[in-house]
């Protein structure tokens, strides 16, 4: 897997899309993942490189991308954070 990283700070939205696809579908080929996340192949590879370095994804023997436990945990923590904070908001009924 390429070790190239996203050119600037990774977009949390893109990371979340990749993780969600992997979480929903299990392991996926990079081309499949690019289609599912509507990312260009090059950008996907850069994100996967960054996520691999962080330990969120890994490649299996058949060159499929797999979400690691850590990747799953980070996504869960992010969801929990949104739940915790957005959940506290009380919106008026206009």
């Amino acid at each position, binding site marked *: 897997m390429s070790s190239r990283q996203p050119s600037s*700070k*990774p*977009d*949390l*939205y893109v990371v*979340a*899309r990749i993780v*969600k696809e992997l979480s929903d579908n299990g392991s996926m080929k990079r081309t499949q993942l690019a289609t599912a996340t509507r990312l260009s192949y090059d950008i996907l590879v850069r994100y996967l490189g960054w996520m691999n370095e*962080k330990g*969120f994804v890994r490649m299996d023997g058949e060159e499929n991308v797999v979400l690691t436990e850590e990747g799953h945990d*980070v*996504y869960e923590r*992010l*969801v929990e*954070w*949104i*739940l915790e*904070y*957005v*959940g*506290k*908001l*009380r*919106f*008026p*009924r*206009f």
Partner: protein
Amino acid sequence: MSEVQVLTKVEELMGALDQVKRYKALTRLLVDFAVIFLAAIAVLLGWELGFDFYRLGSATGCYYAPFGEFTCTASSAALPLAVQLFSGLAILLIPMAGLLGGIVWVDRGLKKVEVEGWKGVLGEGIPGAIKLLQELNWDLVLDDIRASKSGYSVYFTVKVAGYWMLALVVLFFPYDVGMSALHLAPNMYALALVSFVLVVLVARGDLQKKYRQVVSLDNLMWELRWFSGEFKAAKFEA
């Protein structure tokens, strides 16, 4: 809480912000409304002045009546009937046209406000919710809520004033007839006071609702100020 609950909460947040957008647009549109209505009053004044000058210019039927009033009468008979009729009703028709024009303008403007554009993004699930939260310009959102609050308060005042004027016009004729029947002089101050009390009584529910909406906007601002602080402080980069 599940993913569905997160999405529901974010949907509520975005819905509340859409409402803020509408209120903010209303603030701007109320200025347009005032301009349209004042333009109608200017047209009315222009019409009345023009009509009086025409009658004055025709040099018949104008005289100083007792108590120093300058009155023109018969000369307008030379004008087409439609113009005479319009002149008689202009004081009612032109401001009403201004009022209706203003209402239609505000209504059109409010329909143009782009809302619910976020629904497609939220349809992506949690990533969509993250995108929406990430892209919110919190400083702008808080400014918008502040502007909406004052705009909504002005709208609330204008609405009450409008109802009051309407009540005055509607009550004037029966009141005048009643006072004439009793051989008493009409008291406009009393009529204005009674109209105001009636408006407050009839529109009480609506007024309470509007007041609660202003308070709601205030609460929303405090809630979002807290949330934006938390969101900015959160370290999402792994």
